[in-house]
C-alpha cells in the first residue's frame, strides 16, 4: 500500500505553524500588542481547519490534542485551555464541513466562526482563572476584532498555497 506524504507533512506543518505564532508575536510585538489592539496569531489553527477540507489526515484528534498540549506547556504554562479548545474546534469544523461543499468563501466563513469562538472561549477561561479583568466590550473591540482581521488576512494569503500543498501530498 502506498503511504501518502501528508502523514509526515501534516504534523510537521502543524508544529512549524505553532512555533511561527510565537516568533511572529515576538518580532511584531510592537504592532501586535499595543494599548488598544492585541492580535493573537493562530496560524496552527488555520492548518488544522484547512486539513479538514483538503487533506486526509490519520488520527486528526491525536494531533489536535498534541498541538494543544504543546501550546499550553510551552507558551502559557497553564495546561488545559488549548488541550480542550483545539479538539473542540476540529470537531466543530468537521460537523460544519458535512453540510457544505468546500469553496473559498465557505472555508473562509467556517474559519471566521472557528477563530471567533476560539478567541471568545480562550478569553472566558482567562477571566475564570483571574488572568484578565478586561470587560466583554473591551475584549470585542481590543482583541476579537483585530485578531479576526489579522487571521482572515493570513487566511486569504495562505489559502491557495496550503490547499495546493495539502491536496498534492494527500494523493
Amino acid at each position: 500500500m502506498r503511504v501518502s506524504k501528508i502523514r509526515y507533512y501534516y504534523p510537521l506543518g502543524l508544529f512549524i505553524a505553532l512555533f511561527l505564532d510565537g516568533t511572529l508575536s515576538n518580532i511584531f510585538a510592537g504592532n501586535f500588542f499595543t494599548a488598544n489592539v492585541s492580535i493573537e496569531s493562530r496560524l496552527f489553527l488555520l492548518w488544522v481547519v484547512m486539513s479538514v477540507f483538503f487533506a486526509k489526515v490519520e488520527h486528526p484528534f491525536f494531533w489536535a490534542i498534541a498541538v494543544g498540549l504543546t501550546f499550553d506547556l510551552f507558551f502559557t504554562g497553564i495546561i488545559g485551555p488549548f488541550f480542550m479548545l483545539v479538539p473542540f474546534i476540529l470537531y466543530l469544523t468537521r460537523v460544519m464541513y458535512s453540510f457544505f461543499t468546500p469553496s473559498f468563501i465557505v472555508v473562509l466563513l467556517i474559519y471566521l466562526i472557528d477563530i471567533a469562538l476560539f478567541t471568545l472561549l480562550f478569553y472566558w477561561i482567562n477571566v475564570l482563572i483571574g488572568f484578565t479583568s478586561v470587560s466583554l466590550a473591551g475584549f470585542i473591540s481590543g482583541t476579537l476584532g483585530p485578531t479576526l482581521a489579522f487571521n482572515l488576512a493570513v487566511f486569504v494569503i495562505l489559502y491557495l498555497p496550503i490547499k495546493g500543498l495539502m491536496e498534492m501530498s494527500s494523493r
Partner: protein
Amino acid sequence: MQRFFFNKRLIIVLITLIIGFVLVAFSVTVRNNKSTPPIIQQFGNDAAGLVDRVVSYPISAVGNVGGAVENLLNTYQENQKLKKQIDSLASEKVSNQTIRRENTALKKQLKLNKSLTNYTAVTSYVIARTPSSWQNQIIISKGSLAGVKKNAAVLSDKGLVGRVTEVNKTNSKVELISTTNDDADRFATTIITDDGSVNGLITSYNADTNRLIMGQIDSQKTMKKGDKVITSGMGGNSPQGIYVGTVMKVEKDDYGLASKVEIKPAADLTNLNIVTVAKRTD
C-alpha cells in the same frame, strides 16, 4: 443503538471537560511553587524550545535585517545627538570608576562581601512571545543549566522587564511587568526623591497609558515628576538598584490615604531581543 452512541459521545465530552478544568486549576495553583514544573514537563518544554529555535532562526534573521535598515536611516541624526552626549559621558565614567573602586575598598574594610546590589547576570535571547492577549509572557533561551532561578528579576538594556515564572533545563518563561493577573508577584521598588527614598510596591499596570502603578507607599515625602524609580531589593527576589522608570504622576489612592504613583517604565516591553536575568548572589 443510536442512544448508546449519543451517550458515549456525551461521556467523552464530559470527561474531557473535567480533565481540562482540573488541569487548569492545578496549573494555576502550583504556578508559584518553588518545585514546579515537574521533570516531565521540563523535558517537554526543552524539546519544544529546541524546535522553536530552529523555526524562529530564519524569521528572526529577516527581522533583524529590517531593523538594521531602519537604524541606518536614522544614523545621521542619531550621530549628531550622541556626539553632544559623549563628552559629558567620559567624565562621568571616570568618576563612576573611582567611586566604584572606593566602594569595593570600603566594603572590604567592613568585611561586607555581599550586599543587596550584588548580582550575577545571565544573558539570554528571547525565543518567542506567548501569542495570547491575556499573558504578557516571553520565552528566553536560558534555563536552570545556566543558573536561572525562579522569581529572579529580568532586565533589558534599559531597565526592568519582568520576572522568571517557570524554569526548565534550557529555557524559561518570563512574565513581563505589564502583566495584570491576580497572582503576579509584586516588585518592591524605591523612589529616589530629593529628601530621601520612598518604598512601595508595583501593584498594577495600566495598559491604556503604559504606566506602572506603584502603591503601598508608607511615606509622606514629596515626590515629583521625573524622580527615578529603582528596585529596592526587599522581598528577596530582585537585587537592589535595577532601574524601573520615572515618576509621571503622584496622587492619592482610591481611599485618599496613601499615595499612588504612576511610573513610566524605562524598558520597551514590545521590543525585546536580548534580556539579562539578574541572579542575586547573597
